[in-house]
């Protein structure tokens, strides 16, 4: 396996406050690396360093063997899919236009865009002829998130960044979306960096889990080995599972 993205001794400070410190982590091709942590642990901040929405104050991020700051930010971002909690769809664009956004920016032929959009909508379980012409306000939360994922996949980027994509969904829809994500990941063999605060989601979706606490990496382990992690923060997260089982 080769390394697709890498954090090297990364540090991020806002004035004197340290948000992230001494982060060294590699994202291997084909894996889903989950960034797990409480609110304010720095996981979303770390994610935004990859596509240069934020710039680290120390250390570096590398993508495809090249430092992120050596990339043209526009080119870098078009090679990285991005999915956020409320999907961030453009309300004035139809579903088709939303999904076709990056291909349009990349100046694909209209016919190629259209067939790609149809293919992607079908892939995320939305009938293209029914949903293509709708506006985001006409969609449910789960449908919006499906469109968000289709949009992120549009230009076939090697890496996906997902920032708590399913956190705002009801439990049943969330479960369906998690299953859909697993199916997609296995069929497309995508690399993903997935931020969540939900230990169940981390164990279900992650091939590896990186646990953050107060801006530092506390545990990095395979999902199958995470349950035996001994750090207090890992135990704190795992204890929420035990409480659930006890009930």
């Amino acid at each position: 396996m080769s390394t697709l993205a890498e954090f090297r001794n990364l540090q991020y400070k806002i004035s004197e406050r340290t948000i992230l410190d001494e982060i060294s982590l590699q994202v291997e091709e084909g894996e889903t690396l989950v960034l797990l942590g409480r609110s304010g642990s720095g996981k979303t901040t770390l994610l935004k360093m990859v596509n240069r929405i934020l710039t680290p104050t120390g250390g570096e991020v590398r993508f495809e063997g090249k430092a992120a700051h050596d990339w043209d930010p526009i080119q870098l971002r078009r090679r990285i899919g991005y999915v956020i909690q409320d999907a961030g769809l453009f309300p004035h664009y139809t579903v088709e236009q939303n999904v076709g956004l990056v291909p349009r920016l990349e100046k694909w032929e209209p016919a190629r865009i259209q067939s790609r959009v149809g293919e992607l909508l079908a892939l995320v379980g939305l009938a293209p002829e029914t949903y293509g012409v709708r506006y985001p306000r006409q969609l449910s939360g789960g449908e919006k998130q499906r469109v968000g994922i289709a949009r992120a996949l549009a230009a076939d980027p090697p890496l996906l960044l997902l920032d708590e994509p399913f956190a705002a969904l009801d439990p049943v829809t969330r479960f369906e979306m998690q299953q859909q994500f697993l199916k997609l990941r296995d069929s497309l063999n995508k690399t993903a960096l997935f931020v969540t605060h939900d230990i169940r989601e981390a164990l279900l979706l992650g091939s590896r889990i990186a646990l953050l606490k107060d801006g530092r990496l506390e545990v990095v382990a395979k999902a199958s080995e995470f349950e035996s992690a001994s750090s207090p923060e890992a135990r704190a997260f795992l204890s929420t599972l035990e409480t659930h089982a006890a009930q």
Partner: protein
Amino acid sequence: MLLSEILPALLEHLWLVGISVAAAIVISAPVAVLLTSRARLRRWTLGVVNVIQTIPSLALFGFLIPIPFIGGVGKRTTIIALILYALLPILRNAVVGIMGVDAGVRESALAMGMTHRQILLRVELPLAFPTILAGVRIATVATIGTATIAAAIGGGGLGTFVFRGIAMADSNVILAGAIPAALMAIAADEVLGWLERRICFWA
């Protein structure tokens, strides 16, 4: 009062309002875009524009008359005063509209690899457009009213009848100016309101 006298005054009135609102839009657009990213400048500029708004219109016309180049008696002074009044609703709504675009939408646009220019033209401005148009609507209706006072400094328009009627103590003459101005304001409000609903198709 003859229709042949009212009609030219009405057209002149419409022209005064049209020119002034159009100029206020042209001035506000780039300024609004500039202000959205500069908090200090935004506070100061909106503050100044706000103060202008509080000056009574007759007083503002009075202040402008002695100023060289832009002042004097006549249409030029009138239009400048009307532009100054139209600035606040248009500028403030444009700033509020652009800044009110959902943070998630803006962040997605950036993360999709859109340039700042593309984000402004394809995302922020279209999404702010209903708010911007609402500002234009307020400014237009208010300017139609203010423009009647312009006749006091020789600006022409429907206000000519109002002032003549006051001088003659003839309420029919006053109404010959006031009624068309009121109807024009109502019509402008309706048309711009319809446009606003048409354009906001996605919400």
